[in-house]
């Protein structure tokens, strides 16, 4: 069970939250001009790193706000929590730098 610090409400139990998957995935600017393979990649494929991953979480049973969280997929250690629209530097051992340059 994780103890997650909501940027607004402070530390709360994991059961109050919903995980929204990998963060900072940029939707193609012009989907109509994007070929099927590229759009399928955006739609279905995820980085799935072994290590630090940035994810969207929603405090769904609390303030119902979305925020970003950086978590180790190996240890579940939470290394960073930041609000939507923010894009802090990657932690030293982040494993998916390519993904983190995208738009939120």
């Amino acid at each position, binding site marked *: 069970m994780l103890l997650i610090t909501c940027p*607004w409400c*402070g530390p*709360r*139990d994991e059961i*109050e939250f919903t995980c929204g998957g990998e963060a900072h995935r940029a939707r193609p600017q012009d989907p109509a001009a994007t070929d099927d393979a590229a759009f399928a990649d955006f739609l279905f494929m995820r980085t799935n790193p072994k290590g630090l991953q940035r994810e969207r979480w929603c405090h769904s*049973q609390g*303030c119902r*706000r979305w925020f970003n969280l950086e978590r180790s997929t190996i240890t579940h250690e939470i290394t960073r929590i930041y609000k939507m629209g923010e894009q802090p530097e990657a932690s030293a051992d982040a494993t998916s730098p390519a993904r983190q340059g995208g738009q939120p």
Partner: protein
Amino acid sequence: MPAGTGGSSIFLALDGAWFLIGDDLMSELDRAACTVPLGLSAKAFAEAAGTRLALAELVPPGALNLRGDLADHGFVSKACAVLGCELPRAPNSVQSAGELTVLWLGPDEWLVLTAPGGEISLAERLEEALLETHVAVTDVSGNRAHLRLKGAAAREVLAKGCPLDLHPRMFKPGSCAQTVLARTSMLLHLLDDAPTFDLFPRRSFAPYVVAWLVDAMRDHEGVFLNAA
């Protein structure tokens, strides 16, 4: 262990700790659509002042959901002028003035509680004052039931099904929190050090929450429930 029926309520007591439920809990629970659905007596609850654990249902207050931008000074000043009350800015805090209580729900969202029936004119006054402002005023009076749990063991009763840190050092009077109680969404408001908790479950969940609370209260302070 005196247990007896008085009027429409059953009083259950042992060593001065007692609580009360409707005389036929299940049939009362079926009346969930009524104004006072659960048959818990607010009057009897008031008479229970000084006892160690009591649960009551109150008539649900008039409730408005207010959304607006705290950075917009026009919004803040106009809303506060109508409410006669500050908007709580700190997460999970409460401001009140007169019969109005404003609970923080989010950085741009508040729950305004007023006397039952008072929500209609309050909404009209808010909408009129905030006509030119980017806000949302929504009547949510039918959304939640209103329960009150009071007594020295209240924190322990809630802690059985609530992951929130309810220790007096962490959760103080004047705090509110949207959290989970017994796997259902719950809005909690701690009124005083008694401690007295106001509980606002979703209305359709209220019968379940009351049944859960009655069960959770059983083994506290020797309270004994005899359903017969």
